């Protein structure tokens, strides 16, 4: 091999290495012209352009001012979001805490340069460096919305809001004297195991659960046992918000863990429902907009980052979804429809009562390999729903 050939091979190798790695290494240093398109993986109801309800639109103005045409792919569960991002072809994802760390570990999202986001400083300080999007001091996303997983209940049946999650976990008689069997629902996602663990935290302190996302074998087993009991009460689990809405209307379901989104839609439809956070507290979600490592439209994405913090989005979305803005000022400064009372009702003051979704990993604060990792949650929850 001549020197020239070697040099040629080396340069090819370097080039290959550079092109292969550059998306992961390169952090944006300046925001340029928009690329004309932006595709977002989002929860249902998160990206509204006035088509569901004219009053709720935070996309049209963005498209007009930046020229970035927004397309949305809705996902029903965090696992679905991770899968879509693994497939690729999307720019942004509104990932919850149980997806964000997996996306970072899988190398699917890129580091964010927060200096390019003028409104970064307006974010709630409690969220700015939150562990579900900040790893080793590097930021991998921009906080979007957060809120609790509430207990939705039928107000005709419950004259007083239920004070405990036991209505969905334990066999019992409801206020109308009939059993809750077949009249309650639970979330069709493995993360629901954390709700069971949180219930046990309160009612069985002897188990010593510190965090519902960090369970050792015994605690995990206790949570699964509780869920097996719940299987006897639940005729159908919900994973699609609209099927749950239908089940509350036509299937006689009177209580279930839910999102404020369904509560608001059912209320708007004149159904007798309300929501509450019982004494055990609630799990919650804190979503972060993250940028795909191979995004073809990074400029549009950075424009969206600032748009999501500075426009009417935070305020109006918080009304629409029943969530809490990541920018506290959005509650009061009149940029949208949200008010201080509305934010309080959606849980602004309950931040400390909420245990936010995070991905369970085996190396947790209890020690190396001490906790049951998420993949077992997945397969065991399929087993529980299958009656095993």
């Amino acid at each position, binding site marked *: 091999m001549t020197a020239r050939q070697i040099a040629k091979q080396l340069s090819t190798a370097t080039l290959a290495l550079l092109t292969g790695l550059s998306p992961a290494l390169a952090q944006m240093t300046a925001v340029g012209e928009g690329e004309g398109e932006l595709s977002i993986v989002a929860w249902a109801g998160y990206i509204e352009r006035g088509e569901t309800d004219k009053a709720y639109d935070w996309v049209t103005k963005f498209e007009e001012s930046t020229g970035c045409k927004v397309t949305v792919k809705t996902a*029903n*569960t965090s*696992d*679905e979001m*991770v*899968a879509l991002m*693994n497939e690729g072809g999307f720019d942004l994802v509104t990932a919850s805490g149980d997806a964000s760390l*997996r996306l970072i*570990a*899988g*190398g699917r999202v890129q580091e964010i340069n927060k200096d390019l986001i003028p409104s970064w400083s307006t974010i709630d300080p409690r969220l700015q460096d939150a562990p579900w999007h900040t790893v080793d001091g590097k930021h991998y996303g921009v906080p979007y919305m957060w809120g609790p997983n509430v207990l939705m209940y039928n107000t005709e049946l419950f004259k007083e809001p239920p004070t405990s999650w036991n209505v969905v976990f334990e066999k019992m008689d409801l206020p109308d004297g009939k059993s809750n*069997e*077949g*009249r309650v629902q639970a979330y*069709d996602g493995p993360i629901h195991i954390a709700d069971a663990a949180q219930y046990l935290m309160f009612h069985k302190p002897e188990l010593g659960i510190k965090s519902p996302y960090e369970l050792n074998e015994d605690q995990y087993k206790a949570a699964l046992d509780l869920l097996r009991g719940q299987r006897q009460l*639940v*005729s*159908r*689990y919900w994973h699609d918000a609209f*099927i749950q809405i*239908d089940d509350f*209307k*036509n*299937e*006689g379901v009177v209580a279930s863990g839910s999102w404020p989104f369904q509560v608001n839609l059912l209320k708007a439809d004149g159904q007798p429902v309300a929501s509450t956070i019982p004494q055990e507290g609630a799990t919650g979600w804190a979503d972060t907009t993250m940028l795909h490592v191979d995004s073809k439209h990074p400029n549009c994405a950075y424009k969206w980052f600032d748009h999501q913090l500075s426009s009417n989005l935070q305020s109006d979305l918080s009304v629409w979804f029943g969530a809490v803005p990541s920018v506290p000022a959005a509650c009061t400064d009149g940029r949208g429809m949200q008010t201080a009372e509305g934010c309080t009702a959606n849980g602004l003051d309950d931040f400390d009562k909420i245990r936010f979704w995070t*991905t369970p*990993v085996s190396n947790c604060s209890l020690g190396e390999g001490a906790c049951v*990792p*998420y*993949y077992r949650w*997945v*397969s*065991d929850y*399929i*087993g529980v*729903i*299958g*009656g*095993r």
Partner: protein
Amino acid sequence: MTAPAVLPARGLADRLTALFWRHPRVLLSLLLAPPLLWLGVVYLGSLAALLLQSFYSIDEFSGVVKEEFTLKTYAELFRAQNLDIILRTVLMSAAVTLGCALIAFPIAYYAARFAKGRWKAVFYLGVMLPLWSSYLVKVYAWKLILAKEGIITWAADALHLSMVLNAILSIPGIGGNSLSTSWIGTFLVFVYIWLPYMILPMQAALERVPSSMLEASADLGASRAQTFRTVVFPLAMPGIIAGSIFTFSLTMGDYIIPQIVGTSARFIGLAVYQLQGTAGNIPLAAAFAVVPIVIMLVYLTVAKRMGAFDAL
């Protein structure tokens, strides 16, 4: 010096025609290439890709597929909850096939042997009509029909038959809180959706039973029941088996009905859908997808033994 004989220059089409005339095989292979490519690359190729995926495994935390050959994913199929899914799906497919066959036979028999002229057209239309509307619309409609506060419960109340409905729903194992959240509901919707695929091949088979044979059977002193048992039924068997192949495999692969109507317990199709779409576990999804292929191969072998393909 004589001038060479001048033939008119031949165009491309002329030359191609000559080529095809001299070598008929060239034309044949040209005509066959596109469909064979479709079958080989798009159809079998994607199946092969699927098979390949099932030998990979998944990194348990990040959910990224590790492209190394392993049988670990197949071993996972034998976990209790996954075996449950397979068994549940096969049982449901068998039940749906049986249900379809029982309901379809009289309909097909009447349409094939007794309906004449316009009535025959009405039968064909009646069977085909549901196939023309959207599958999803039909399933959602059934969810409402079967709901606890749906029309069946309402009708049962109005006719004072709630006792019967509740008795049916309290059957352990297949009952539930309402029809829409029980196995019975899933079964009913499956039977409704796949019924046309059972009726049509059955009707075709019954139409082919020559009436001379029935007359001969009667002449020889067979009762109607005997004729049915020993002449009509065996001759219709290939049609029944052909229909059962449709209903069995369609039920086994479906993932929408059990998601909307039923108890949320997984079926193979639903498990595949959730594992690849929701959990990103493509290897396990692929391994699950191989299960119906294997079951159908066994089923087809048995069907072949029974003569389902003799008429082909």
